[in-house]
């Protein structure tokens, strides 16, 4: 047997070695982790051979947690401290969440995002999600025998900025380096497309436990181009369970059940739903706290009738996505089914009817998202496989700013390919005005009050001028994760107004640090060491990247002085790596990055001009 190479914990493997990267599907119901091994994407199982980790977290009075199966089996015993489907609360305020009254949690209405009071203290959905991610991270590190370079975390395509930011924060809190947030249907398309060498227009229909996505993609010669995405981030298998649950209450003349009975019946409802996928009828039995016994038979047809309008609610986003893509159903070559809830026969039938063709079900709907994410993670970590491909994704919901009268003016329309940016100029309203406030919203509706408020920020330090004379250029940049960044500049004076838009619901780096410190796992010393390790890893990767760049293009693109300057910064950083001063290392990293900016631009210019076959563009006929 070949000896396994295991690197020292916290250190990245030596240059050119395989970097450990994973894809994580952080699902409403189930979460899983996958990686690329010997060129093949595989799901990593737990020590009992199970791939799916139930997305359930139980908090105990001593501050410890149980995650997965262990928490799931006791959920009706301790419903208030056992959090299920936490994904539905990510980036959501109390008023955004439907049906909170039926839920057994003690909600705390915090600004931006709701929180939950547990025996172990008040927890934000970000912290709960981080517990799930920590388990998957540990699973991956045990299986791969080293610490991870990074992870791709998947999110529903229809997640807005708040939900994406919350997911990214959760990953950071779990100690993961987020290589990318990837849309779930896109991940599925990668796994499916690469596996089947698919070409043409495809739809991905993803109905999971709590979310619904529809994405239309064009696959051509290794390019995965998302044309349109739509969906509903609060529609999934959970809602079908709820229909059965309501039916059970009615059938048995029950009302006002306690929290643990509610959980019990919801669990039974879910089992019944899954049974009906294979069987024409199913029997639901349960013993309530009062001793009352439930024993009811549910027929498939009755279930289909009661859930008919849930299925219908997935059709509207499909029509919209097609319309946005400028396509007709006939144009779609294949429909890929993703998510456990697509196993329901009535869903398959509705999709088949809509597209006039049987959907593709030759892949495991539970795993395909994680498998695709792992393939992406492998590429992003710099482990190049032979086959190169390109992913072009979109932002699912329009971004706008509030204008007079509470209206939203769209600045970046939905389905714009990311990364994308838009600059907008503003001026002052009064003489001598030195500040102005900007409200950024997301959504398709005209009224600001019907859209999701992303950030309100104030721009200060505008030089006093007469009304209308100032020119403030605000740039809205959406990055490849689909996250918004805003910067502002006063054009006349050239003053770069220092604003960082951290949406009101997002966590600041200090908050993340505090949460990390709070969790009993990390003592103060551990934190220091952890930061040091992170900076060391970053420094080594940076040095390697710059070294490679210099070897490739240094002599061609840089003169002697520039090369010396960069090498000087590299030596400085290398020297600091021998110390344990993480502040100094971080500063040296920043300096080296600054020193190489012009070089990076020159390198990019070079590859751009090579891209179109080395033709000189100026030679073209005009």
């Amino acid at each position, binding site marked *: 047997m070949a000896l396994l190479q295991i690197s020292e914990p916290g250190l990245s493997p030596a240059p050119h070695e395989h970097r450990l990267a994973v894809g994580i599907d952080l699902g409403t119901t189930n979460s899983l982790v996958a990686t690329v091994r010997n060129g093949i994407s595989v799901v990593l199982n737990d020590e009992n051979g199970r791939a799916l980790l139930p997305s359930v977290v139980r908090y105990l009075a001593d501050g410890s947690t149980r995650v997965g199966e262990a928490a799931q089996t006791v959920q009706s015993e301790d419903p208030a401290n056992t959090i299920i489907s936490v994904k539905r609360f990510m980036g959501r305020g109390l008023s955004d969440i439907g049906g909170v009254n039926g839920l057994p949690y003690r909600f705390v209405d915090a600004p931006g995002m709701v929180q939950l009071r547990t025996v172990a203290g008040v927890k934000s959905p970000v912290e709960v999600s981080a517990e799930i991610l920590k388990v998957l991270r540990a699973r991956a590190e045990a299986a791969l025998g080293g610490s991870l370079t990074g992870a791709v975390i998947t999110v529903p395509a229809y997640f807005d900025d708040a939900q994406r930011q919350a997911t990214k924060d959760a990953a950071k809190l779990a100690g993961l380096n987020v290589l990318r947030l990837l849309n779930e249907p896109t991940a599925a398309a990668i796994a499916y497309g690469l596996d089947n060498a698919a070409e043409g227009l495809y739809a991905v229909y993803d109905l999971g436990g709590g979310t619904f996505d529809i994405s239309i993609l064009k696959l051509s*010669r290794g390019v995965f181009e998302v044309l349109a995405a739509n969906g509903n981030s609060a529609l999934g298998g959970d809602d079908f369970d709820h229909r059965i649950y309501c039916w059970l209450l009615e059938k048995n003349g029950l009302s006002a059940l306690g929290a643990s009975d509610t959980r019990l019946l919801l669990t039974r409802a879910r089992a019944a739903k899954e049974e009906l996928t294979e069987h024409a009828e199913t029997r639901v039995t349960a013993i309530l706290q009062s001793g009352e016994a439930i024993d009811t038979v549910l027929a498939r047809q009755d279930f289909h009738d009661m859930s008919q309008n849930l299925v219908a609610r997935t059709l*509207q986003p499909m029509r919209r996505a097609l319309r946005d893509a400028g396509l007709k159903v006939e144009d779609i070559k294949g429909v890929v089914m993703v998510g456990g809830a697509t196993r329901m026969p009535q869903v398959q039938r509705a999709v088949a009817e809509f597209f006039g063709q049987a959907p593709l079900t030759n892949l495991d709907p539970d795993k395909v998202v994680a498998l695709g994410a792992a393939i992406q993670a492998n590429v992003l970590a710099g482990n190049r496989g032979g086959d190169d491909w390109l992913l072009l994704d979109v932002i699912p919901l329009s971004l706008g700013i509030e204008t007079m009268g509470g209206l939203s003016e769209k600045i970046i329309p939905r389905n714009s390919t990311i990364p994308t940016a838009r600059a907008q100029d503003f001026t002052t309203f009064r003489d001598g005005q030195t500040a102005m406030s900007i409200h950024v919203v997301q959504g398709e509706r005209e009224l600001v009050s019907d859209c999701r408020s992303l950030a309100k920020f104030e721009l200060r330090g505008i030089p006093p001028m007469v009304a209308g004379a100032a020119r403030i250029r605000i740039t809205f*940049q959406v990055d490849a994760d689909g996250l918004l960044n805003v910067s502002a500049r006063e054009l006349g004076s050239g003053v770069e107004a220092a604003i960082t838009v951290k949406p009101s619901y997002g966590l600041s780096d200090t908050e993340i640090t505090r949460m990390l410190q709070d969790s009993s796992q990390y003592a103060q010393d551990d934190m220091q060491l952890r930061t040091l390790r992170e900076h060391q890893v970053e420094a080594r990767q940076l040095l390697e990247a710059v070294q490679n760049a210099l070897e490739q293009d240094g002599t061609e693109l840089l003169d002697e002085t520039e090369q010396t300057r960069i090498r000087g910064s590299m030596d400085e950083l290398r020297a600091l790596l021998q110390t344990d001063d993480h502040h100094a290392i971080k500063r040296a990293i920043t300096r080296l990055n600054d020193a190489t900016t012009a070089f990076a631009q020159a390198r990019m210019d070079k590859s751009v001009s090579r891209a179109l076959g080395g033709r000189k563009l100026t030679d073209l006929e005009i």
Partner: protein
Amino acid sequence: MSAPDFQQDFFQLLGLPQNFRLDNALLEQHYHALQEQVHPDKFSHLSEAERRVSMQWATRVNEAYQTLSNPAMRARYLLSLRGIDIQDENNTAMPAEFLMEQMEWREAIEEARQARDAAGLDKLEARLQHDMYGLETQLAARIDDSRDYVEAAGDVRKLRFMEKLAQEIASALDAIDTD
């Protein structure tokens, strides 16, 4: 934080001649070839400087592709390169006949929306597409052949009006679809 100095116009960037008539397949092919080089996915394991430059370039390439793949935007951009501002922001001097037609379109769309007539809206859309296509053909002749930029600017303004109608049809269809 300095941005790269983008000297090339969108046509040069995408390796296409500066014409209104366009080889769509070639545009897409070049767009993909460029993103292949500059997309953030290709740089995520590299230095922060390289990641930043990559995002700026990928953003620029997306903007170029978006502009050139849409006929009205392409025409407007092309005319601006030739020094013509189509003044679509503050132009009231549209022909009266055209404005009348616009009103009729609006009424027809509104009527279909009220009646929740999706098939009617689809028909309106098909007719609009047909009209727009006719205008684009005329625009191609005026820009690329006769180089009659003043007339062309008028066509672009009309085209942008029609695009707004197309958006209205789409949002009417969305509204009908909302349960």
